């Protein structure tokens, strides 16, 4: 049954991807990309990667699509016909693809429990992590503890993205501009529904943040969801209102603080005599120490991701505002 679902989803993915090549309407390209992301999230669920599916749906289909749409609003939605030939790219792709297919022939069979990756390294995560780290969600254990350094790097990547976007697009806040024409002003229904929904979305973000140890979720997903709540607010009530609720300056302080919170756990464990990010040293009982460590660093990740995603959205959205005004 799983194979059947897999096949259907994969063929839908292939169709979506092929369609994108030939489409000239960029709006449709972006929507199809969102569909592509959702479909791959479904495949991830089918392949047991629930955390990944969650993230892909929130990021690929959510944030990325929103950002692409706001870019399109500024750059125009039609791709122009180009005369340059597509033979060379096709050749490159064929050769690369052939190399990959050649490589697959020797691959361990799909789904076989005797594959090397299920025999080495991973068994310890599966067997020992509930004891050593004490969390039922192995993905969180590996993410936050065994490979916590990767996750620190990931948080820094997000931070670097904010630096990049802020360098390129500056958020300008106009105080005097009292009655902005943005937002879906006449949509009474939307206003009411948004007001009902947004608190629940934030509540859900908190749930995902602190329940990540037990189920799918964690700081990253929570940060994205919380940012999505504010983005929804900005879309419905207009950007200036959102800027008044959470100012960009505040976000620019929040994001580095999240990174520092994460790093400070590592520094603290160094002072307690362990290596960097050694949570065992945080409390007398190593498992408690792991627990504290993971909760704090997940919070750091959540704060940074929330601040970064929101300030990136602000930066993009305020470009669109600027164009509307001029």
């Amino acid at each position, binding site marked *: 049954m799983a*194979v059947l679902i897999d096949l259907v989803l*994969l063929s839908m993915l*292939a169709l979506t*991807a*092929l369609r*994108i*090549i030939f489409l000239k309407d960029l709006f449709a390209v972006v929507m199809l990309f969102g569909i592509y*992301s959702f479909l*791959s999230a479904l*495949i991830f669920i089918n*392949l*047991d*990667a*629930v955390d*990944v599916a969650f993230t*892909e749906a929130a990021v*690929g289909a959510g*944030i*990325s699509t929103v950002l*692409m749409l706001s*870019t399109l609003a*500024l*750059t125009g939605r039609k791709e*122009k016909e*180009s005369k340059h030939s597509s033979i060379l*790219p096709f050749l*490159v*792709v*064929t050769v690369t*693809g052939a190399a*990959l*297919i050649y490589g*697959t022939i020797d*691959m*361990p*069979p*799909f*789904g*076989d*429990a005797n594959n090397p*990756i*299920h025999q080495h390294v*991973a068994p310890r995560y599966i067997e020992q992590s*509930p004891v050593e780290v004490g969390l039922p969600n192995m*993905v969180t*254990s*590996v*993410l936050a503890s065994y*490979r916590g350094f*990767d*996750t620190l*790097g990931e948080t820094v*990547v997000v931070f670097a*993205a904010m630096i*990049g*976007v802020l360098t*390129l*697009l500056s958020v300008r806040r106009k105080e005097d501009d009292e009655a902005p024409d943005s937002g879906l002003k006449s949509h009474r229904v939307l206003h009411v529904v948004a007001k009902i929904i947004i608190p629940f979305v934030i509540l859900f973000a908190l749930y995902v943040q602190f329940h990540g140890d037990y189920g799918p979720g964690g700081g990253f997903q929570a940060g994205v969801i919380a940012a999505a709540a504010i983005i929804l607010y900005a879309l419905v009530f207009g950007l200036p209102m959102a800027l008044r609720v959470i100012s960009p300056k505040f976000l620019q302080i929040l994001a580095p603080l999240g990174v520092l919170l994460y790093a400070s756990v590592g520094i603290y464990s160094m002072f307690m005599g362990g290596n960097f990010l050694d949570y065992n040293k945080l409390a007398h009982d190593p498992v408690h120490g792991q627990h504290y460590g993971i909760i704090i660093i997940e919070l750091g990740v959540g704060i940074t*991701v929330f601040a970064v995603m929101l300030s990136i959205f602000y930066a*993009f959205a305020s470009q669109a505002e600027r164009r509307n005004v001029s």
Partner: protein
Amino acid sequence: MSFILDYYNYWVVVFLMMTGFYIVISANNLVKKIAGLNIFQTSVFMLYISMGKVTGGTAPIVVEGVELYSNPLPHVLILTAIVVGVATTSVGLALIIRIKRAYGTVEENEFKNSDDAI
């Protein structure tokens, strides 16, 4: 038949990767290039997740009475990679907005012509 069942997943993933890669290198419009880049990366994520699957296993969250779990390590790697992907996407899109403002176009051949070579 079992040969196909063992590998069909990887083959489709390779096809998807190459579709994304083709869009990246052939598209003339920068936004489409970025969309292609995302498709390329998402397909690579699928490669990783495919290798982590164990037939008959469940998601790697401890449930009483379940013995066989899929491999959590690829999931962790891909969580990180997804975040890296969105970071790159946002910087790329920000660059596109600036290019549009500076050149008035986001078609690669058009702004290539409007500057000297290099």
